[in-house]
């Protein structure tokens, strides 16, 4: 019954979708019109790129993943637990990728689980330490060449520290909003933040990141990149 009621993402792009899909009540945009054409892609934060970088059309893309399910897991003995059958990474900031699921070790007692892979998302197991937080967050992916340059306009955090091995988690401010950020690769970064910030955050990210060519894209761009993980 729950699936029948429509759900809304906090992020709505001002662009015409070319392909959509209804998933668990969410209308998921797989592709926007003009996406992928040379120099194209729907633009909000319009502006030429700075300096070198990839050719037009292949620049950094912003994808809304707010519809992907997420969970918070907290336990004082978290290292010994396997929430949703996932081993909790031992180090703070470590990220485990297990097929479609990603688990981020946040601190001594806390981990976040994200469903990022294709296919139906798993149900929430009956585990009191687990809280579904899908509706609490906005989740955005930055995909494609030029992502580091785009993010330089948004955050002072060092999301591409060569001393760290990918994937890794960074918890800190992006556009002064506290975020959980996972760097999978220089061309794939996913972040989650409080849902209320979602709309204005995405708009600002496009305006500022637009200085480095950031444009919006549908979920398809993310799916094909994450599948290579």
């Amino acid at each position, binding site marked *: 019954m729950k699936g029948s009621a429509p759900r809304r993402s906090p992020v709505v792009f001002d662009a015409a979708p070319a392909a959509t899909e209804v998933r668990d009540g969410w209308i998921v945009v797989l592709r926007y019109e003009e996406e992928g054409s040379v120099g194209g892609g729907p633009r909000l934060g319009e502006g030429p790129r700075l300096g070198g970088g990839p050719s037009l059309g292949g620049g950094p893309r912003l994808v809304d993943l707010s519809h992907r399910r997420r969970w918070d897991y907290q336990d004082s003995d978290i290292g010994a637990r396997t929430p949703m059958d996932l081993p909790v990474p031992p180090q*703070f*900031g470590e990220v485990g990728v297990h097929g479609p699921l990603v688990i981020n070790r*946040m*601190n*001594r007692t806390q981990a976040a689980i994200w469903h990022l892979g294709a296919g139906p998302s798993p149900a929430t197991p009956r585990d009191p330490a687990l809280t579904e937080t899908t509706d609490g967050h906005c989740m955005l992916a930055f995909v494609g060449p030029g992502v580091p340059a785009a993010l330089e306009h948004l955050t*002072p955090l060092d999301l591409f520290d060569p001393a760290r091995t990918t994937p890794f988690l*960074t*918890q*800190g*401010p992006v556009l002064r909003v*506290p975020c959980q950020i996972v760097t999978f690769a220089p061309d794939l970064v996913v972040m989650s933040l409080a849902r209320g910030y979602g709309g204005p955050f995405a708009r600002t990210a496009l305006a500022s990141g637009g200085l480095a060519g950031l444009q919006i894209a549908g979920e398809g761009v993310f799916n094909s990149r994450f599948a290579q993980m």
Partner: protein
Amino acid sequence: MTFRLTCPVCGKRDIREFTFGGQERGPRPEQPGLSAEEHFRWVQFRMIPGAGAEAGAGAEDAGAPAGGRADTRREWWYHGQGCGVWFRTTRDPMTNREVEGGGGQG
């Protein structure tokens, strides 16, 4: 003016990510038999670096530096923009640098 702190979870981060939680003053006192004066001393009185003691009172605070020199302080900080952890660190207020081994106690 800017400096960084070492979060035990996230590592070195810009000061703007943290909130200050005051100097370490020990755990909350037991309440039965707690006089108002004792309570307010615990709440309000701060050790002043260089004063050699907490202001206006005898040098009863353990770790108060001797002599009239600014000294390091044990402080609480909250990584509110990051992992959400309270931690203690030892900082030199003259340089705003953490003292060797001062950071990272959850």
